[in-house]
């Protein structure tokens, strides 16, 4: 459904790209509805598509009597099935293996085989998304005469940690402490063009731009140091803001002095996101695992644990990365169990347009979440090696929960959210 105005995203990309399948026919069409227009959503279309598709994959695996992970592994693909491009990196098998271990996959029983009224189940689902970033994207660095650094860019931080990771990348190359770096974002008047918050693009697009600007800054500093110290650039060592002459360690100069001695006041560089490699497919991958309990007398589903194993290239900052995964999983939990726009079909009005009837999960509904990063880096994309995580984190959550629910009760719930009424109706064949 696309609402009253055609816009939005398809749901079929996971079906087309997640597995190797030589004979695949997919038909997808949009339906205009007399409802409000489609709005922005984390991983538009893919949460929905994955919810349906990964349940189908589990169903097929069960029909042929195969373990769902085994089935996914034999249908694994090294190349993008759509056009044959090789992936810059793909660690989906690692996500299956590490996730399965963390959830205790070996404890998984036959569907619906548990005793008692509250039944336990384990399930999983895979994820694919873009998230490699691309040009254009720029960042300007200003090194001040006190040795402090400003980074500015027209991109933004919507709570995801952009400020932190941009500073980190510059700090890593220039060896300037984080507390001497100031980042100015969200203003296209003062900063050069930066990417919009969408497509999990910000980290993989903007960190290489900062990297490029920092490398240029390093070149300027080095040539400045060489000129002032009257040595060649090869004769210099650099560490923690200080150049030292290799053969004469008494001869040193720090970066703030370089700026002053050059009478530059500020050194300025602007970096750009590099082009992506030709002929490659760039994707993020992951697998999430759910451990759930279903109360067969009330229809209520309780999620005990979610393991989220993701291939997102390099983890620049594990803390902000884990926050993204927590946020994605909790939002996915909302999609799986609670959140639904309920529209009166006679009037077309939404009856639950408030935060009380439209139920987002609270902390009491939130399970233990275990993020696992299975990737090291992806240097084919950029020297930084990061892919995005914002959207990957939400994509497989609901599908993993639904497969776990099936494993618990042996009945498929085919529409989200899986509220108690639907579960009871499914159990009692109503």
């Amino acid at each position: 459904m696309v609402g009253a105005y055609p816009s939005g995203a398809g749901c079929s990309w996971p079906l087309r790209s997640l597995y190797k399948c030589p004979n695949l026919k997919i038909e997808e069409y949009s339906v205009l509805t007399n409802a409000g227009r489609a709005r922005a959503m984390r991983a538009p279309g893919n949460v929905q598509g994955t919810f349906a598709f990964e349940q189908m994959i589990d169903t097929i695996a069960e029909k042929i009597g195969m373990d769902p992970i085994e089935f996914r592994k034999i249908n694994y693909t090294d190349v993008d099935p759509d056009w044959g491009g090789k992936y810059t990196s793909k660690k989906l098998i690692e996500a299956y293996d590490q996730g399965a271990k963390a959830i205790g996959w070996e404890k998984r029983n036959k569907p619906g085989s548990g005793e008692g009224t509250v039944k336990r189940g384990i399930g999983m689902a895979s994820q694919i998304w873009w998230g490699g970033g691309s040009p254009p994207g720029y960042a300007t660095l200003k090194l001040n005469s006190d040795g402090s650094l400003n980074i500015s860019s027209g991109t933004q931080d919507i709570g995801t940690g952009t400020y932190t990771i941009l500073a980190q990348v510059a700090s890593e190359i220039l060896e300037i402490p984080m507390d001497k770096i100031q980042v100015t974002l969200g203003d296209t008047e003062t900063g050069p063009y930066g990417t919009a918050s969408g497509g999990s693009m910000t980290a993989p697009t903007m960190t290489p731009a900062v990297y490029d600007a920092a490398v240029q800054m390093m070149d300027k500093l080095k040539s400045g140091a060489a000129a002032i110290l009257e040595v060649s650039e090869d004769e210099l060592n650099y560490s923690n803001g200080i150049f030292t002459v290799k053969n004469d360690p008494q001869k040193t100069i720090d970066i703030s002095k370089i700026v002053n001695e050059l009478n530059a006041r500020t050194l300025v560089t602007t970096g750009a996101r590099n082009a992506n490699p030709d002929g490659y497919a760039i994707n993020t991958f992951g697998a999430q695992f759910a451990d759930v309990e279903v109360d067969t007398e009330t229809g209520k589903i309780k999620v005990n644990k979610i393991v989220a194993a993701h291939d997102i290239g390099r983890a620049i900052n594990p803390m902000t990365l884990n926050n993204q995964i927590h946020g994605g999983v909790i939002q996915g939990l909302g999609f799986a169990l609670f959140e639904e726009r309920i529209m009166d079909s006679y009037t077309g009005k939404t009856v639950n347009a408030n935060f009380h009837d439209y139920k987002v999960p609270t902390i009491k509904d939130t399970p233990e979440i275990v993020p696992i990063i299975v990737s090291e880096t992806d240097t084919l994309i950029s020297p930084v090696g990061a892919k995005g995580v914002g959207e990957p984190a939400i994509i497989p959550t609901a599908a993993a929960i639904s497969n776990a629910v099936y494993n618990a009760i042996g009945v498929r719930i085919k529409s989200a959210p899986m509220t108690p009424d639907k579960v009871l109706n499914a159990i009692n064949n109503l």
Partner: protein
Amino acid sequence: MKNFEYIQPGSLNAVSTLSKEKFVSSHLFAGGTDVLGLMKDNIISPDRLINLKNLPNMDKIVYKKGEGISIGTLVKISDIAENEDIMNHFTALAQAAGEVASPQLRNVGTLGGNICQRPRCWYFRGEFDCIRKGGGICYAYEGENKFHCIVGGGPCYIVHPSDTAVALTALNASIKIHSNGTMKEIPIREFFILPEDDPMKENILEPGEAITEIFIPELETGKKSAYIKLKERDVWDFMTVSIAAVADVSGSLINNVELAFGGTAPKPWYDENINKVFINSKISDLETNVKKIFNDSELLSKNKYKLQLIRNLTKRILNNFSA
């Protein structure tokens, strides 16, 4: 929002006089957690709000062993949930209070306000001119009715939203009401009304009347009480279905039981015939006995699951007494 007057009278007589003044629409205000929502959503637009906060002695809990407990109308829901006498002797009420909304709302909402809160039907709370708001049709009847009633409906199909009212109904509480200078006491089982009597009101209160306290008689020896509630979300959610029970269970035998059902009807549902199914029955027969209740329910297009749910929860709450 329309301009309104805000008054904090110091006596019940003043409350009566102020709320009955001709050509002025008045509304009583306790914690305000429901009143303010109703005003913001344009469901009520009173000329005058009468805050009960300054009335003396209405925020007290007094327990007299052997007699019962009196709870002032202004006692906060959170204080009920945590009161030792209520937890020990009227457990269902403490549990029901603990299930209400969220900690913030429980800290502000009062017992009287909780009982008198307006229904949560989303058509009633939304921009629909339905029967309960004086309009001509019930939008829920053929619309989005998964949370609506399965008994007692027509022409309106709300469920009563209050958790505490369900517990108080099972506990056979009575409600003390100040009515134009005199006091009256009404059993809670007669306090709420069905839409067939008046689809625009949920209880018998008339303008000029105010609840002053709620009294619960001491349970007979051997009886205990409990409350269970299914909500979709673990906190900050109204009941899908809830049940309060006062029961005397020895071993595997149910000697006596009084059940009240929430999320089931336009008022906390109490039916002697349901009690009779379980009185002097065995716990081991629950599975068959629950099938005998609510057979006369009128299921709507999207609330069929409630019948099974009510039966399952009845089984569960009674089972818990023998555990």
